[in-house]
């Protein structure tokens, strides 16, 4: 068993400090360690065993154990193991040795649990506020269990401004966002520009937090969360819906019936189809090539319709419940889906040929926004960004879920790691998705859609689930809890890691390449911003105060 092998490699070196290990199923490994050994174990796992960093989670476990907890998740892609290294932290305020200097990809995740749970990452190279809004008082941590889900701190100061870094000598600051035609959602990059060349940037995001994780562990119940999870993202929502359901199913050892696993696969691939078509269109739009943008959207439309026929919605399919799915694919739908795929394949073949031979697009995308394999490793980059750099990872193959274990498909990779390579990866993945859906339709048998669940779900069990979203691996971490809801649910959307690679990708590039470089990771800011309490940007001169604006907005809603 590969999980055993990995475990042995770790325990051989760290026997004395590992408190407990758990292998609930093949492909999942949980290690509980002493806090003082955490840093060294992570270094060993990340560098010596060459595991991929996934995410770090901070949680307030005081109601159960009286302690805070930190978990660092890693993926052994070749060995097909997802691993979580957990650690109880004594003391209040809790402190943990930072791993961000050893594992650069952990930079945001540690700052996030510093903001939200109040766990101090000691020795963090850049311990700056990340998630909480500018006006949020220091020392108030909304994701702690004793903090009510709907509370706004009384000393919230809407006039407090964010303390931005100083630009380097001789550089002008070009603000990119919060609102910009190529940003579909608010995010703020301060570009430090020397002439037309970007020398660096600072990112300030997390502007549309919706308290989804907090709601998940304090308001919603197990089967309500999939609907909220789906709303994390406007494009790849089904990914989160499935990933959450799978995480809970793994924790509670529930197996969904085969037909449900096929239907999940089909819907996930339908989602990838429409997302990749959307991205190729938007990428062309960013480059000013609107003709291909329009053609992509025309080709994409039938996919949206078939999704609506299956689920009742173009997007936001509300597919999963714990233990199964809610929608069936009837014989009529199956035949129509086949027809849609046939047309799509023909039309996409034409687009692929046109794109692959287009010198003009290559001129704007070759050697632009390069993320090489070293950056992929350090920042934990995933999905098409990693595959474009020749890093052969795909959750569907490496950590099979739903029905992917039975599917035959190729993992598309490229070498150069630039925008052009990412474009090609996405263009050709469309054909693989079509292949996967056809295999599902061929092999799917009649059968139940849900596994009945009679008992309460067991508590304090940990579940990990990774799903290959169109943008890369979406990762959900769940600890089951009391009152029919999880004790902690942590979502790591692909953009969370990929966005951290962007500053290195745009350094010393022209401003004109900034938009397509950022666009090429297919950024999804709402996914990244899923966390925590309301936020309205503060600072800058305004006519309305925050309260007035809120009141106006609410009155406007009520009037309708």
């Amino acid at each position: 068993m590969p999980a055993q092998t990995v475990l042995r490699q770790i325990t051989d070196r760290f026997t004395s400090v590992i408190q407990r290990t758990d292998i609930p199923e093949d492909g999942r490994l949980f290690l509980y360690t002493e806090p003082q050994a955490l840093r060294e174990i992570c270094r060993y796992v990340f560098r010596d065993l060459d595991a991929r960093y996934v995410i770090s989670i901070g949680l307030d476990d005081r109601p159960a154990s009286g302690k805070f907890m930190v978990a660092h998740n890693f993926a052994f892609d070749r060995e097909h193991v997802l691993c979580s290294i957990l650690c109880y932290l004594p003391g209040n305020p809790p402190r943990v040795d930072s791993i961000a200097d050893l594992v650069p990809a952990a930079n945001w995740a540690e700052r996030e649990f510093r903001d939200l749970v109040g766990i101090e990452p000691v020795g963090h190279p850049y311990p700056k506020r990340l998630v909480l809004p500018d006006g949020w008082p220091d020392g108030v941590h909304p994701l702690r269990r004793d903090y009510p889900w709907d509370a706004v701190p009384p000393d919230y100061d809407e006039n407090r401004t964010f303390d931005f870094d100083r630009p380097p000598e001789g550089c002008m600051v070009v603000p990119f966002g919060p609102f910009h035609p190529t940003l579909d959602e608010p995010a703020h990059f301060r570009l430090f520009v020397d002439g037309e060349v970007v020398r660096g940037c600072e990112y300030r995001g997390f502007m549309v937090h919706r308290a989804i994780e907090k709601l998940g562990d304090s308001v919603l119940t197990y089967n309500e969360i999939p609907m909220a999870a789906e709303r994390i993202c406007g494009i790849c929502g089904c990914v989160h819906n499935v990933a959450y359901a799978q995480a809970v199913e793994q924790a509670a050892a529930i197996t969904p019936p085969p037909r449900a696993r096929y239907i999940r696969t089909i819907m996930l691939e339908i989602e990838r189809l429409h997302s990749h078509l959307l991205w190729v269109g938007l990428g062309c739009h960013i480059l000013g090539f609107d003709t291909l943008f329009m053609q992509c959207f025309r080709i994409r439309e039938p996919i949206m319709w078939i999704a609506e026929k299956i689920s009742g919605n173009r997007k936001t399919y509300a597919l999963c419940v714990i233990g199964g799915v809610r929608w069936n694919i009837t014989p009529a739908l199956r035949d129509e889906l086949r027809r849609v795929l046939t047309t799509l394949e023909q039309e996409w073949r034409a687009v692929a040929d046109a794109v692959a031979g287009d010198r003009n697009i290559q001129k704007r995308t070759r050697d632009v926004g390069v993320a090489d394999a070293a950056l992929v490793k350090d920042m934990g980059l995933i999905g098409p960004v990693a595959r474009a750099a020749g890093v052969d990872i795909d959750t569907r193959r490496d950590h099979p879920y739903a029905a992917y274990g039975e599917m035959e498909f190729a993992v598309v990779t490229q070498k150069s790691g630039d925008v052009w390579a990412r474009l090609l990866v996405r263009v050709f993945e469309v054909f693989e998705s079509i292949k996967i859906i056809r295999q599902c339709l061929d092999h799917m048998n009649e059968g139940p859609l849900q596994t009945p669940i009679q008992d309460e779900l067991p508590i304090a069990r940990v579940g990990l689930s990774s799903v290959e979203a169109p943008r890369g691996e979406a990762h959900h971490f769940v600890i089951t809890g009391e009152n029919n809801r999880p004790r902690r649910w942590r979502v790591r959307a692909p953009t969370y890691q990929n966005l951290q690679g962007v500053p290195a990708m745009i350094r010393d590039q022209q401003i004109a390449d900034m938009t397509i470089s950022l666009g090429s990771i297919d950024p999804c800011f709402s996914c990244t911003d899923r966390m925590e309490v309301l936020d309205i940007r503060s600072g800058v001169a305004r006519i309305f105060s925050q309260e007035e604006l809120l009141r106006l907005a609410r009155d406007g809603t009520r009037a309708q």
Partner: protein
Amino acid sequence: MDSNLGLRFLSGVMNVVLVLLLAPLCEGILRKVTAKVQSRQGPPIRQPYYDLLKLLGKEDIESGESPAMQRFAAWLSLAAILTVALLVPMGTVPPLSGGADAYLLIYLLTLCGISTMLAAFAAGSTYSLVGMSREMMSVMTLEPLLAVAIVIGAVHVRSLRLDAVLSGSAYGEAAAPLAGVLMLGVAILAFQAFVGRLPFDIAEAETELMEGSLIEYSGPKLALFKFTQMAKLVVYGALVVSLFAPWGHALPAPLNLAMLLLKLLVLVLVVTLVAATHARYRIDQALRYYAGLLGASMVALLLALYGY
């Protein structure tokens, strides 16, 4: 000359009216054809007229660093392009060309670019300043091309008088009009850039600079700038036609006008198709492209000097 004064005055008014009426129509055709290429329905051909009227009717918002300068820049851009319209033959006698020389034309064309830069500078936003610097780089490499084209004409006719230069002079009397043909190629390749359309709309670059130079403009001022952009297509078109494709200019005025409209339509279609099938160039790529054209035009100039 005096006997022609009335006629020239009339044709001057006609030219301005023609540009005013024709520019939105060309834009409308461009949009409609683009839409067809993109499998879209597209707006009605008369939509640009409505757009301009709507913008003109909006509140004139003063946003930017120096409003007076911004207003001036908006008027300057339109005034410059309409003045150029007075110098270029459009189906009738060129109204002012007898009294002007080729330099004036070059100055006025440069003034169009300068008014955009002025607009960007006066607005003072970061994006408009980046747009301005791109516009400046483009103007500095593009305007010499037009100047060379006109000078080649001047060399051939041995005169800087506009009416002489603007009558298909590019080919001169040479048996093998190498200079003219080479310059025609250059002009065709540069035309997209002259009129500031994709892939050369780098100074506006909606998805990078959010309209760059024009970012702070709305309402009537934006209408003037938009109109200048549309008029550029007609005026530069007429200029290229009279330099390189004057066939039919000796015909009676109505036929001559019809010929001009036909040629303009062809140009608009070419511009549309090029714009619809290209991604925007980066400024450095565009500058390299312009530099290549500039080199070719210099060769053409040398050929012209030696009588080819």
